[in-house]
């Protein structure tokens, strides 16, 4: 059984400027097996981030057609929090700030929700410290408001930190590599690789193949105009790098 099984998925988003629903996804098919690493590439506006948001159940996107099964369950009938508790995770490209919500409080609540049990402050602190050390996140972060005033790199670290705490079966990384300098990129993607078990699949959305230095995908997909138009192995991303998207989908 696939971990994620998407068939003929189409969606619209409300466009406030034009006061109408705009189609974005247009018949996406995708299968992800347990433990696999998938890379999703494509130009801006091709629908990559929309797919990530639709999978997580963003309220502004409406699925008009198609089916999604996650671990054999009908994903579209599940609320966003249910999806998360079932083991889906989205590392946001632009995480939202929540003023006044301390990072520590948030992380504990999220971890407890995912594990469906209360965790003692002491046990949680111990676990959290370990994860923070790996990602070189200073302790002072815990008292700050969630994502408020965080730099681009700090936000990305916070997203990976949460992934390590929540231990998802499927992690969708929406341009986690963008805006990072070389050292940070190396730190984060080495960490993502090291923490990936056989039970975790990754769907990595990216523009660049520079992350190939740190992580090797099993499958590479190219998205264009709301659907996956070509799939292949790691060689496909190398081809895109040398020849460009246009050549890859011609």
């Amino acid at each position, binding site marked *: 059984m696939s971990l994620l099984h998407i068939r003929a998925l189409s969606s619209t988003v409300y466009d406030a400027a034009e006061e109408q629903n705009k189609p974005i996804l247009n018949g996406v098919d995708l299968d992800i097996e347990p433990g696999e690493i998938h890379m999703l590439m494509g130009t801006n506006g091709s629908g990559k981030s929309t797919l990530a948001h639709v999978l997580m*159940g963003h*309220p502004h996107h409406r699925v008009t057609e198609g089916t999604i099964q996650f671990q054999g369950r009908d994903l579209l009938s599940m609320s966003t*929090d249910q*999806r998360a508790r079932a083991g889906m995770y*989205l590392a*946001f490209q632009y995480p939202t700030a929540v003023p006044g919500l301390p990072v520590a409080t948030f992380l504990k*609540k999220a971890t407890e*929700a995912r594990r469906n049990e209360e965790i003692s402050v002491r046990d949680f602190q111990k676990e959290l410290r370990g994860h923070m050390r790996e990602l070189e996140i200073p302790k002072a972060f815990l008292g700050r*408001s969630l994502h408020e005033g965080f730099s681009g790199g700090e936000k990305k670290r916070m997203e990976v930190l949460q992934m390590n705490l929540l231990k998802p079966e499927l992690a969708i990384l929406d341009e986690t590599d963008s805006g990072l300098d070389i050292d940070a990129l190396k730190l984060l993607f080495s960490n993502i690789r090291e923490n990936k078990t056989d039970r975790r699949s990754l769907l990595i959305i990216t523009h660049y193949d520079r992350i190939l230095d740190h992580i090797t995908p099993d499958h590479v997909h190219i998205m264009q105009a709301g659907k996956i138009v070509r799939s292949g192995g790691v060689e496909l991303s190398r081809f895109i790098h040398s020849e460009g998207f246009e050549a890859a989908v011609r």
Partner: protein
Amino acid sequence: MNNSQREHLSKINSDYEELYGFKTSSEYMESATRGLSEEVVREISRLKEEPQWMLDFRLQALDTFNRMPDPQWIDPSVFADINYDDLYYYARATEKQFNDWDDVPEHIKETFEKLGVPEAEKKFLAGASAQFESEVVYHHMQEELEKQGVIFMDIDSGLTQHEELFRRYFASLVPPDDNKFAALNSAAWSGGSFIYIPPGVKVDIPLQAYFRINAESMGQFERTLIIADKGASVHYIEGCTAPVYSRESFHTGVIELFAMEGASLRYTTIQNWSNNVLNLVTQRAVAHKDAKVEWMDGNLGARTTMKYPAVSLLGEGARGRVLSIGYASDIQRQDAGAKIIHAAPHTSSSITAKSISHKGGRSSYRGLVKVLPGATDVTANVQCDALLLDDHSRSDTYPTIDVQEQRRVNLAHEATVGKVSDEALFYLMSRGISEEEALFMIVNGFIEEFAKELPMEYAVELNRLIQLEMEGAVG
């Protein structure tokens, strides 16, 4: 926000009846009379065995009250339902005041126990006072403070025991003709606190007064006077609740604070009156050289609140701060704000007003920042943030800035009005957090700046008030 989110929030204060809205026997009301007249005022003064000058003060205030119109700067619907003849202006439930909870009559003690007052006192207060209707029924302060010369007593005792000190300050900041409700209070006042902190004495843990209305149509006219002498510091907290009745009750207080040179004075209110209480309070403070006055004003309850804590910065280096939150739901109207007068150079002030409006509730910020000629090198910051939880609630700001000095005056005013963002909800839910808890976390984050200024136990209580029922839904 969708319907289920609205529903979760509509549960805020939904267990008010059970937690605060209970009542106890009000047999003592049999001897009380409705309406305010010269006779009633004379009777109050006689019962309290007041000096002649105070009776004269009251009678003159009564005359002022009778002649004064309602405030004209707010729409008159606010005052439409007030029936002054229907109210009780004075009622006492016990013959005397006690300083041991074991001596307080059982049914009254039970009331305060349910509200957690004796427990709070034991845990984290240096002194506590409990007012039931018009009189303080319980009062106690740590001996240590008494030895240091700290005076903390009900205000009626303040008048009899420290008449000279009392008379020097009483009504000097809020004269009876300041506004109609100050006049009403001045005529009928009873209860409240009298506090004097001697020079250099720092009271590190808070003093608290709890105000409880029990009977229907009751008017509570609290009067509080706090003097922090040179270099002294004190934190005073007031809490307020009442049973739910169909007829209006009144809470009309006059609070005067005096921070002498280098003193530090903080006044915290957690007001959670029932939705039939009109809460019209005049709060005013002066800060002398290098003194600091802070009003922390939490307005969660009452049908109508009108309250604009003021600080006059009279001495060089004085600082003033007003931090308020208001929660207006349904028929509630929170008309709150602040007033800061910079009357000396090198003074600074900050006003932060946060409001949450919900289910048709209405909250307003009404504020004045005034810089008088000669007050150079002044900094003043005003920040108003409104959170609207649906489309039929309302939030308004009425800021007034009056600057009469141009030399190095630094003023900033910022106002935001927003809704709970779908993106923030989505983000939290994408981490497995349920919708209702996510919403609570966002609202709670919005008021964090206020909550973090409260003593821990109060922060927890405030948190609980906002969270009510939501937590149950989450499990």
